[in-house]
């Protein structure tokens, strides 16, 4: 199939090299196997109800390959239950995505796990909210059904149920542990609690407004998602973001990475019983947020990136202030790193906790920060750099141990690398416009935006409707790939280490639940 398959590929608008092809059911699966053999990753799956246009449902898969992104599309006649072959055998992370697609669209993969993933009983089983004939403003009373967790049986095995409301200021989700004594035999996650219907909500918005929702898919990745959204819209309207605006976007993205890494390093110290770490790192994070406020005009940059550019320029006083701040931050983080590295108690908790081996990481399709800590070298900024990263040449940061300590080290190294990138960006700030007009996209255009956020690659697939409307917008957070990793990393560890191991991944609930 190789030659024929490749020649059928057409270019798709994106900020990365991206191709697109349409296939039948057999090829749908074959192409997945082929990409898998070539070392490709499944980035995301999404479906679309096009019955109003041509009577069909469609399913799309996006793969990350060495040469860029491949989007494969498969059409389904709308019979009683439109169905497509599951990709979960080849890419295990596809399973939850397929369950979610079923909950929203009523198209099924031929896979036996039909438990609701996003639907917890908040709407009837016969209602599929992403179908075009469903009015998104309809409300239903909750009719929650018990969720059949997989049971582990044996001498002395018991279950611990945690959540959805957790102790601490974190997002909601449910964890079901099967344990013997303190040791975890199995963990099963149940997510979907923060499902807010964002895909349907996008369809009620204009292409211009969509960025506000994109920034709020996962607040800690606001810059990454709003950039991915802007990139997708710019790709389908053939708008070129001015160089100065691209620099400012990258500066904002690196600040977002810094803030999250600082916050995580503090929390990880705290979860390992070293409150001093939390105090120090939370102070550094607060300092950075205040610098954001005085330079970008906000602590969190939710509405900074807009299609065509950015909302505001740096004030003239910003560059020296930022450089001073980077200097102090670098010095502080270096000395904290020495303290963390030499603290026997901390290292005892970090090392060999929550190990995700490279083999397992590859098999499960780990991406982003958690993947890099298990020796999976994937970083869009390095592999497929879009402007201005092509000039900056970021370093790929990896570790091989795959334990909590490795995820800590990746964060430390990425902080120093981000600071280097920020300095390069500031040294190279050519004057110029920060915004150009982004026209309305012609109806029926599909484009992809992909940005390496602090957690991993975030994706927006945007299809335009008539008169500046959004026909379909699919957002994908790397947490989809990485949540299942946690179920493996915890095996054989003790329950009291779960908060630490969970924090070392720090995955998004909201970004995943949608």
């Amino acid at each position, binding site marked *: 199939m190789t030659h024929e398959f490749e020649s059928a590929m057409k270019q798709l608008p994106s900020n990365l090299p991206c191709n697109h092809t349409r296939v039948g059911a057999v090829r749908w699966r074959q192409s997945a196997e082929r990409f898998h053999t070539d070392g490709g990753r499944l980035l995301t799956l999404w479906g679309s109800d096009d019955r109003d246009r041509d009577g069909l449902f469609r399913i799309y898969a996006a793969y990350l390959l060495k040469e860029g992104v491949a989007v494969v599309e498969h059409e389904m006649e709308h019979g009683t239950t439109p169905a497509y072959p599951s990709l979960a055998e080849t890419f295990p992370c596809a399973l939850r995505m397929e369950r979610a697609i079923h909950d929203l669209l009523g198209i099924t993969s031929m896979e036996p796990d039909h438990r609701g993933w996003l639907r917890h009983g908040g709407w009837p089983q016969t209602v599929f909210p992403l179908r075009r004939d469903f009015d998104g403003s309809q409300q239903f009373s909750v009719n929650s059904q018990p969720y059949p967790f997989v049971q582990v049986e044996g001498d002395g095995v018991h279950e611990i149920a945690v959540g959805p409301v957790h102790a601490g200021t974190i997002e909601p989700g449910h964890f079901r542990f099967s344990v013997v004594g303190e040791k975890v035999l199995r963990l099963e996650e149940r997510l979907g609690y923060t499902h807010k219907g964002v895909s349907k909500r996008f369809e009620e918005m204009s292409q211009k407004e969509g960025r506000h929702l994109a920034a709020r898919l996962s607040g*800690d990745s606001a810059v990454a998602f709003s950039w991915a959204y802007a990139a997708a819209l710019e790709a389908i309207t053939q708008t070129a973001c001015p160089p100065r605006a691209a620099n400012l976007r990258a500066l904002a993205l690196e600040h977002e990475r810094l803030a999250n890494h600082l916050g995580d390093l503090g929390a990880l110290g705290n979860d390992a019983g070293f409150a001093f770490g939390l105090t120090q790192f939370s102070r550094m994070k607060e300092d950075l947020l205040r610098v954001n406020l005085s330079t970008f005009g906000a602590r969190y940059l939710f509405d900074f990136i807009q299609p065509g550019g950015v909302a505001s320029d740096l004030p003239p006083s910003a560059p020296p202030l930022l450089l001073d701040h980077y200097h102090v931050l670098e010095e502080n983080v270096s000395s904290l790193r020495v303290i963390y590295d030499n603290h026997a108690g901390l290292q005892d908790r970090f090392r060999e906790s929550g190990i995700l081996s490279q083999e397992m990481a590859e098999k499960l399709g780990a991406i982003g920060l958690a993947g890099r800590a298990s020796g999976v070298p994937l970083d869009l900024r390095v592999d497929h750099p879009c402007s201005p990263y092509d000039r900056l040449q970021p370093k790929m940061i990896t570790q091989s141990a795959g334990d909590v300590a490795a995820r800590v080290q990746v964060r430390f190294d990425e902080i120093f690398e981000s600071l280097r990138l920020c300095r390069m960006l500031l040294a190279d700030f050519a004057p110029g416009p920060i915004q150009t007009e982004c026209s309305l996209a012609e109806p029926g255009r599909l484009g992809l935006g992909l940005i390496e956020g602090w957690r991993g690659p975030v994706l927006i697939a945007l299809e335009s409707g008539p008169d500046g409307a959004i026909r379909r917008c699919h957002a994908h957070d790397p947490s989809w790939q990485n949540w299942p990793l946690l179920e493996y990393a915890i095996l054989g560890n003790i329950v009291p280490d779960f908060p630490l191991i969970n924090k070392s991944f720090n995955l998004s609930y909201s970004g995943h639940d949608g």
Partner: protein
Amino acid sequence: MINTLSRMIRTGILTETFPTPCAASPSVEGLQKDLRNILGRALCIRHVDAGSCNGCELEIQALNNPYYNLEGFGIKFVASPRHADLLLVTGPVSVNMEEALKRTLDAVPDPKLVVAVGDCGACGGVFGTSYASRGAVANVIPVHRTVSGCPPSPVAILEAIRSAVLGV
């Protein structure tokens, strides 16, 4: 150990006494004093994320950094609603969290207060109401105060807690 101690000494005490950006509003120190006087150093808060984007969580977590130092003033985030005086609720209430939110409120002993945080908690924000979202927290449980902002600053959250407790 020497490193740790020397860093502690060099960092010093950072808890702030500066006025908030809006001159008319009280200072962080003033807010903390008020709270201490009313509560005698013991306000217990339970946070519930009812479907937020996690942005509001970041600013609530900031309340415990050394600049705002909430715990240092006797305001504690507690692990169980049964130990709480006040629920701090973020997010539009997703239908999948509706039941859990109501149950959490039921578990809080009387008298209890509810503060809804962020544009989402106050009015549904960018998500609004839909098949998956009930919108504002007040659509699901009684709310005493709301804090707008997306996300609201830590000082704004602190002020709302104070005004809920004072009943003003």
